[in-house]
């Protein structure tokens, strides 16, 4: 059964190829069957592989499937190989499972779109590339998937390319993540240069043998890989692309935020954890970046008005928790949070999509309201997702995973980071339920038009269930053998319980505050934003990062481009060309067509030749 692993990425890839080459000629049902079916089959294969893997664990907990050797140049022999262990198993289950639900949902959501086939082709490729990324046994192949998801994000964010703003958003996502990609590429170059391999297992083994902890090379490599991860996972300082990335169709946002793309950075850091262990300073940086990002993004989410923007900032914030988990040395907690987040964030985006779908593409939450009555299924599934996001104690998955991250931070002695995380959790609860109360409670705003059909409600329901019970999966226990167990806890069990209670209280406090500010009947406006005043506007603009980058990079770059537009460097060649033209004009005067002048030239030439031979 494990040998069928290659089918997992190949099925969506085949779907992509079929839809790309035949999509225009196929009827919509056929396109749907291929587009949704390929990912569905892939998830079934992934499930079967998982059953086989868990039922009969291969030695070392790793199954490698070498498909072929890519090339063999100067000692570098990258292989097209699939690497299956608990981490990649979890990832393929999430990617194919959540991906399938999103595809199913899209079948209805995109039904009216003229470019139906192109949409599913891109979505399939997106899933295929993400699967390549997480299954790659070699960093080079991983990089292929890495760039592949970058490309697909570009294609899908700019899916409605008729609108210039969408294309700009796509370009922004591409360019900003590219900054990280370049860093990552340089990191890979160093690995090839110093270790002579990109094989995942060999890299870590050789790095441990060859590099002393904290040595310059390993710090550089870890920092560069972190650069790549920061770009893909929208962490400070490369987070600015994600809020704009919602320009694409809502299912795309769900896919980007939950199953593919942004989780790639977290996966990369978890996967190359061995390198980060050798570079403690960079690992600390991971935690600090994560914490800073989670706070900033939570603040920004608190004051947004656009439903998708709120969710986008919340993704950045939740990714911050994952980085915090990675940074405090508990990759299993981070991946646990990644999984639960995939459930509830996909759910929230799909729910938001259903709202937008029903309410004539209205994005502003303050023009929506009271949808609880007209869209009950959407409301209750959305509430489940928001509760998971807010970390509603005991009955939601988000509570367990977030709590685990915070506990590991506390247990590792990072009290400041823990405190910040707890503050973030409070803000998270506040903004999640601000969203819920404003959109689904209160007075009716925009009337709900189209009702979502089963293809939309079924994924919502399944994801809602997963958002609630996903916390009891016991994932950390599965993951810890691969990702390394956290250090023996110094604190007794009692402290953990105490902190859990504290986290629960914080979450409930946030929800209660949201109720007080937004939920009670008769409330109007946005008291938090009003109270924050200019600070709120600053936060709403994403803490001014766009403006800052605009001044710091975009405008100087534009200025340089404008200066170069007139090609000052071209002056020299242009001068040469001008010189040649001048000579041409001067010489053309000699071609005056007059015979006596020609004869004179003949005579003069002869005279000069004579002079030369006689004097030399």
């Amino acid at each position: 059964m494990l040998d069928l692993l290659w089918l997992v990425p190949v099925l969506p890839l085949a779907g992509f190829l079929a839809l790309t080459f035949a999509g225009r000629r196929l009827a919509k049902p056929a396109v749907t069957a291929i587009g949704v079916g390929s990912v569905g089959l892939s998830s079934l294969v992934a499930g079967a592989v998982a059953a086989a893997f868990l039922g009969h664990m291969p030695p070392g907990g790793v199954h490698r499937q070498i498909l072929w050797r890519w090339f063999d140049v100067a000692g570098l022999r990258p292989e097209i190989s699939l690497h299956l262990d608990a981490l990649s198993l979890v990832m393929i289950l999430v990617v194919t499972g959540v991906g399938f639900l999103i595809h199913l949902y899209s079948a209805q959501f995109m039904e009216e779109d003229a470019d139906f086939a192109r949409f599913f082709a891109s979505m399939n490729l997106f899933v295929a590339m993400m699967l390549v990324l997480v299954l790659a046994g070699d960093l080079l192949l991983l990089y292929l998937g890495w760039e592949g998801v970058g490309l697909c994000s570009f294609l899908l964010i700019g899916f409605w390319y008729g609108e210039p703003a969408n294309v700009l958003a796509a370009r922004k996502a591409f360019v900003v993540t590219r900054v990280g990609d370049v860093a990552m590429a340089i990191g890979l170059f160093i690995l090839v240069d110093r270790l002579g391999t990109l094989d995942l297992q060999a890299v870590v083994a050789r790095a441990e043998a060859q590099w002393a902890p904290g040595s310059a090379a390993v710090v550089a490599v870890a920092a560069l890989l972190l650069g790549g991860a920061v770009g893909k996972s929208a962490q400070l300082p490369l987070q600015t692309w994600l809020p704009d990335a919602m320009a694409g169709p809502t299912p795309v946002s769900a896919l980007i935020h939950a199953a593919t793309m942004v989780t790639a950075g977290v996966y990369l850091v978890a996967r190359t954890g061995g390198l980060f262990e050798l570079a403690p300073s960079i690992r600390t940086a991971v935690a600090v970046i994560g914490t800073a990002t989670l706070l900033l993004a939570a603040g920004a989410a608190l004051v947004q008005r656009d439903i998708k923007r709120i969710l986008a900032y919340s993704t950045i914030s939740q990714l911050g928790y994952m980085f915090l988990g990675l940074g405090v040395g508990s990759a299993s907690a981070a991946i646990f949070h990644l999984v639960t987040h995939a459930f509830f964030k996909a759910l929230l985006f799909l729910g938001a999509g259903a709202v937008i779908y029903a309410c004539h593409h209205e994005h502003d939450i303050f023009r929506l309201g009271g949808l609880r009555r007209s869209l009950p299924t959407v409301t209750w599934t959305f509430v489940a997702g928001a509760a998971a996001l807010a970390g509603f104690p005991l009955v939601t998955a988000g509570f367990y995973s977030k709590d685990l991250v915070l506990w590991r931070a506390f247990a590792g002695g990072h009290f400041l980071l823990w405190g910040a995380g707890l503050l973030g959790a409070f803000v998270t609860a506040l903004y999640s339920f601000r969203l819920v109360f404003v959109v689904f409670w209160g007075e009716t705003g925009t009337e709900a038009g189209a009702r979502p059909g089963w293809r939309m409600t079924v994924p919502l329901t399944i994801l809602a269930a997963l958002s609630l019970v996903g916390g009891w999966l016991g994932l950390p226990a599965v993951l810890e053998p691969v990702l390394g167990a956290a250090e023996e806890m110094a604190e007794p069990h009692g402290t953990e319980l105490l902190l859990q209670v504290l986290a629960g209280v914080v979450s409930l406090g946030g929800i209660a505050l949201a109720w007080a500010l937004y939920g009670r009947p008769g409330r109007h406006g946005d008291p938090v934003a009003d109270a924050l005043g200019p600070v709120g506007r600053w936060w709403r603009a994403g803490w001014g990062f766009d403006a800052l980058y605009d001044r710091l990079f975009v405008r100087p770059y534009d200025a340089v481009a404008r200066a170069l537009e007139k090609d000052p460097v071209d002056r020299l060649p242009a001068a040469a060309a001008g010189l040649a033209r001048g000579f041409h004009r001067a010489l053309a005067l000699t071609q005056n067509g007059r015979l006596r002048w020609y004869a004179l030239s003949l005579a003069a030439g002869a005279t000069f030749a004579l002079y030369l031979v006689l004097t030399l």
Partner: protein
Amino acid sequence: MSGETPMVLLPLGITAASALAVMLAAAVRGPTPRAATGRAAEALSVLGLAAALGSQLAVAGAAPRRVTPLFVFDGVSSILGAVVLASALAVVLLASAYLRRLDEPWEEIYALLLLGTAGALALTSSDHLVGLVLGLETLSVSLYGLVASVRTRGDEALEAAMKYLVLAGAASAFLLFGVALLYASVGTLELPALTAELSAGTPAGSELVTVAGLAFVLVGIGFKLALVPFHLWTPDVYQGAPAPITAFVATVSKGGVVAFLLRLVAAAGAVARPEDGEGLFVVLALLAGASILVGNLLALLQRDVKRLLAYSSIAHLGYLLVALLAGGELGPRAAVFYLIAYAVTILLAFGVVTILSRAEQEAGDLDAYRGLFWRRPILASAMAAAVFSLAGIPLTAGFVAKLYLLLAALDGSRFGLVGILVVGSVLGLYYYLRVVVAMLATPEPETAASEPVGASGGVALAGLGAVLIWIGVAPSAWLRILGIWLGG
């Protein structure tokens, strides 16, 4: 004369005899319709030149043989004789459609073409100054007639012929005077004897006379090859002459002269090493450098394709001279190879011009080529191949030849000339590519008259194109033959 001697004279004999036969055919024309005579002349010319070329190839590679004091038949004469005959054959084939469209008798043109070819052929094998004058005059006098031969071209052709007559006459005068001076100082007209006398040391006082004589001979040759500053006639004559005749001027007449120049440089080189900064070589180097720069610069903004090709030929002869000056074993070989590539290329270019032209309205201006790719893709592709080859772009004969030439020049440490050559090539790219750009442009709504290519023209173009690409892609066979024939 041994019994085998007539064999080596066969090409020349066949060519001359064909000329006579064509003249006879024209003379006995009488009441027969004009077209029939013209076609008979055409057929006679094609057959005669093909036979001459065949016999030339058959006798090639034999041991060098002197026939009368005037001629020597060796590797140089074999190869360049073949180049001359093949070029003439191509010109005749290409001219066919153009001439048949004329509203006037055209059979004399074939007679003149054959006579001129005979003169050029004689030049390739003469290593005697009298042989030089003989060949050159036979060639030149034919050319005067040829340039003016098509009356439909009107004053333009007459003007060109007049200019050519006067200037070529003056140049011949220089040449003859130079020959006279050499004879006066050395007392012989045979190149080998001349070389021997010169290396033995000329009598004191007559040394100046000798070099002056050589310089004047060089002026005459420089005029024929259109080297700067003896080039001013070239664009006017190229433009005024009928297109097929221009092709003849650009190839056949150059081939013979280059052969003699090869012998002359070899003779002079035996006396003084080129590196010594000896006067004659300085003059040649200046002619080469000036030709490359001035030729390319003059072509730069030229809009008339025939004039453009005229300037281009000035520059290309300058390149060829660089190879000659490089000396060594590579030098002459590179020069001959370059001449072959040049002849193939320029014939292809003029071939396209010829096919697109009518006598009264020749395809001169670049506008006539606008959108040619969309109207006549095959012709345009042939033109593009020729232009790329002239520019020296890889996969064409021009690239390989220029590469070989550069190697020879670097081998001979001619760094200054190599620098000029590079500058010239860069300049060249600009105007060569302009032709391609024009051909790719959107076609004018009113399409120019589309002349049929004709069977013979098609054969010639296909053959030339094939050779151009063949040399460009797999030059080794050509280089090997060159090596065998030129020895070493």
